[in-house]
């Protein structure tokens, strides 16, 4: 294990801890960007260059920027306001996280890498394209993801659309009764 790998791992854990532990949401989002940049570097190191670029563009450049927009629009940078209704959950959460980490480490310890991994070709889009657009490989999954994005767009539009107020008089009598019932 080289020095660069150790440094990357330390930076990843450190930034992740900041994301979870800091009380300022803007700091947390920035730490998340840092985390994504480091993880992109790790991807490069693992010969997944296209994925690393996408990681930076989509996650760091688009998603977290969206997060920041929301936090700033709502002036929600300070999280520790109001009363904590589940104060005792922190310790079980820590214990649970440690336990999950423990079992995962244990599981990885029993995992042995395959003897002859496939040729990665540097993880460039020239290598990934045929995989993505071949029906025997990932084409349908790609189409499905496209559909998912369409749904997400519509859902986001509907969610934020302001409520329309229907005049009472236009409702038939039978529905009215139902409303009273509720």
């Amino acid at each position: 294990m080289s020095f660069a790998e150790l440094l990357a791992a330390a930076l990843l854990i450190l930034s992740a801890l900041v994301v979870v532990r800091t009380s300022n949401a803007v700091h947390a989002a920035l730490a998340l960007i840092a985390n994504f940049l480091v993880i992109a570097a790790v991807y490069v190191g693992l010969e997944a260059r296209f994925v690393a670029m996408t990681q930076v563009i989509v996650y760091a450049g688009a998603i977290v920027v969206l997060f920041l927009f929301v936090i700033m629009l709502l002036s929600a940078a300070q999280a520790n306001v109001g009363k904590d209704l589940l104060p005792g959950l922190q310790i079980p959460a820590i214990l649970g996280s440690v336990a999950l980490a423990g079992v995962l480490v244990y599981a990885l310890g029993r995992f042995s890498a395959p003897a002859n991994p496939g040729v990665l070709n540097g993880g460039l889009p020239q290598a990934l394209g045929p995989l993505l657009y071949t029906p025997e490989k990932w084409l349908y999954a790609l189409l499905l993801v496209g559909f998912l994005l369409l749904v997400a767009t519509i859902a986001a539009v509907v969610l934020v659309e302001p409520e329309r107020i229907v005049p009472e008089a236009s409702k038939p009598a039978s529905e009215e009764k139902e409303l009273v019932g509720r």
Partner: protein
Amino acid sequence: MQETVLLPLIILLPLLGFAVLGLWGRRMAEPVPGVVASALVLGSLLLGLALLAQGGAKWAVEDWLPGVPLSFALDNLSGLMVMVVAGVGFLIHVYAIGYMHSDPGFSRFFSYFNLFIAAMLVLVLGDSLPVVFIGWEGVGLASYLLIGFWYTERVNADSARKAFIVNRIGDLGFLLGMGVLWAHFGTLSISELRELIAPEGEFAIGINVAAVSLAAFLLFVGAIGKSAQVPLMVWLPDAMAGPTPVSALIHAATMVTAGVYLLCRNSFLYFDLPDVSFWVVLIGMLTALYGALCAFGQTDIKRIVAYSTLSQLGYMFVAAGVGAYWVAMFHVLTHAFFKALLFMSSGAVIHALGGEQDVRKMGGMWGYLPQTRIHGLVGALALGGLPLLSGFWSKDAILAASYEYSALLWFVMLLTAALTALYSMRWFVLVFMGKYRGHEHPHESPAVMTWPNHLLTLGSLFAGFVGLPYVVQSENLLEPWLNKVIVHHEHEKLPVLDEWALIVISAVVALGALYYGYRFFQAEAAGKLPAWFTRFQEASLRSFYADEVYNALLVRPLKGLAKILFDADGGLLSGFWWLGSVTGNLGGLLARLETGYLRFYAAGLLIAAVLLVLVGVIR
């Protein structure tokens, strides 16, 4: 024996009367239902006699039930019963036209009466045990309906229920007995069973004697219930709640003799089973003694006669138990005459006194009722066993048969005969002698009630002469006639001297007891009895506490058990309900996991993930 469709017609005639009178009887004017009912019974009697004169008849529907034909047979034994049932039944029908005059249930009464006759004929004519059982239950039903005929009185309804329930206990024995026979022999036809069990006058070789014993005993339990033997005797005195013709027809002349008939019809089961027959003798002896002792304390004119019926039925069972089956049927015959006569004389007295049944308010009827007094006297003397009357001959035949069985049994039966003479005189003296102690204006019954009694009087006087003992130089008509169908042991007849000695002893005892009773109970009429006898009468009036014992040992524990079972049932149900509430409470507990805090759910997710990975890795 010929096969003829006329045989079921004997049964169908009164059944038709039941249907017609039951459906349209209310539209008929007063005497019409009674006339129709009587005529139909007379038709049955004549048809039965005609068929019997041609040597009997049989008729069957082969595939009534799988393996069980609906078969009827008219032979000498069932012929005798047809004569008793339809003959005496006809007289009682005619009597009832007068007795039930202006009763609001006039047509209903005759409808039930015809139903009874039809069921009784099914019982006696049935050639397979299930058919007999139909009649057996049918007469029980008719008895239930007729005891509770005046259903507005609570006591009548209770008596009817008691009679039905006690009879059902016996019927269970009958059913189980049939089950045993079916299981072991695969047929319930009486003639086929007889071929299988006792083809040559003794048990076939290799027959399962234990099964036959069990079946015979269980059938005997049925007979105990129907014939009101100890310990199932409690219903018969209470059955006097019905109208008097009912008591005469059902609870004296016919239905209660069905048990004796059953033993005689199935004599091929009993004749080679000394153990079972010993029980028959024992039960019969106890009943004879118990009924006689209970008759002394009764104050109801009909209950005195009812207990005497109990006692006489005991006599018949003793006769059947000692193997003298023809003697049992002989006593059935004579008893049908004199007991029907006694009941109908009692009915005439009750009729004369406007419904009064208490003998303490009677007396002096000798002067008021010129015809009924003769009927009552003949009936009481025949019951008491006055020599040369019918009761004397049949009782003497029973005593002779008991003497052959055991001297002790003979002595007890002789003692009972003396008691019978005493209480029959008590009945007669309290009703007819002395001064009238009531306030009604007694009047003699109409001709429609006296004429049947005239005929029954003739029967009581002369019926005994069909079965005279062999030492009297006259032919015994009944014994060879009945022994054509009843299994019987060929045995040495008693020496002439012994037979004469028995006859003389029984005659002397009867005469002495009749005279002594006549004198003794004049004192009761006058209210001057010795103190010990009054105490005895008090116990006797309450039937020696049989009902109290039944209530304490059976009725109340059963009621308690029913209550306990009912409560236990409720407890069981609430237990199941509680089990349901357990799952409900469990659901409530699980619902409390739904806190509504996303973090809490995430924690659950985390735990699940840890566990799943752990399980997946370790496995």
